[in-house]
């Protein structure tokens, strides 16, 4: 897969395959939703599942209330501290509730770890309508986030 340089020099447009690979490598993203008459944004812990993204949210939470048939956008990003190359991937799509069956638990439930203590009993699936990503050298790697370490990947199994 070759990458087309974007009109802005120094920014590389990523293929869908590359985007998915990067999304699989991290588990915290930020979800933008339309809440009533304004945008809202939440950090979530997600898992890639067969071309979709699944996350948990507590019933009755603000996030849960904000999810309807309206489209959502999820952004995940990261940086390689050694090279200073950062990436950002955005997935847009619809958010649909997932019935908590044994099948769901088997496939994704056990792999999802709530990043926030508390009861999390609603599963939501983002079915993408578009996935876009960019890679670029940050002006200073130190101003970005540190990469996930090996322990993280091992932990996610």
């Amino acid at each position, binding site marked *: 897969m070759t990458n087309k340089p974007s009109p802005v020099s120094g920014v590389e447009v990523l293929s869908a395959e590359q985007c998915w690979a990067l999304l699989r490598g991290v588990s915290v993203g930020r979800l933008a939703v339309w809440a009533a008459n304004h945008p809202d944004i939440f950090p979530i812990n997600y898992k890639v599942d067969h071309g979709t993204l699944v996350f948990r949210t507590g019933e009755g939470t603000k996030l849960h209330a904000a999810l309807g048939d309206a489209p959502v956008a*999820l952004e995940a990003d990261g940086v390689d501290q050694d090279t200073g190359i*950062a990436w950002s991937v955005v997935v847009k799509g619809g958010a649909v509730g997932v019935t908590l069956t044994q099948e769901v638990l088997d496939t994704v439930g056990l792999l999802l770890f709530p*990043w926030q203590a*508390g009861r999390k009993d609603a599963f939501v699936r983002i079915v993408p309508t578009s996935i876009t990503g960019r890679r670029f050298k*940050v002006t200073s790697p130190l101003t970005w986030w*540190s990469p996930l370490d090996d322990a993280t990947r091992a*932990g996610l199994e």
Partner: protein
Amino acid sequence: MNGKPGNPAERLDPAECWELLGQATVARLAVIVDRQPEIFPVNYVLDKGTAVFRSDVGTKVRAAIQDLCAMEVDGYDAGTGTAWSVVVKGPVRIITDPQEKKVVDALHLDPWQPGPKVHYLRLLPAVVTGRRFKTTRPDIWTTPVTDARTEEFH
């Protein structure tokens, strides 16, 4: 305060929110464009109780971000095993006054990625909310590094 069962998240007061906002440099900005949420990372600085950033977003997005926007900043404190998330909501306006731009430049607001970031934008906070919570899996949280803005951005 933190991590008690049944009390998963601690609400932060505005002063705490602003202190945390002052420690970070990267935020995610959410806007609605044609009924579709859009989200993108921005490099920001605080200026007189507002958040200022530069962007090269297109006309449609630029028009949308002059409506209400939501900006989220988060981080993880390894010392306490807690993560935090602060959300600022409000309208964004474009800075056109050259003098005002100079003030912003003096704050070392350098864009976080290459390319011309022609627009200077200011988020006027209408609502600031924040939460702090124990992470059950701290290792999955991305850890913000020490703010090196002072020297690194020159």
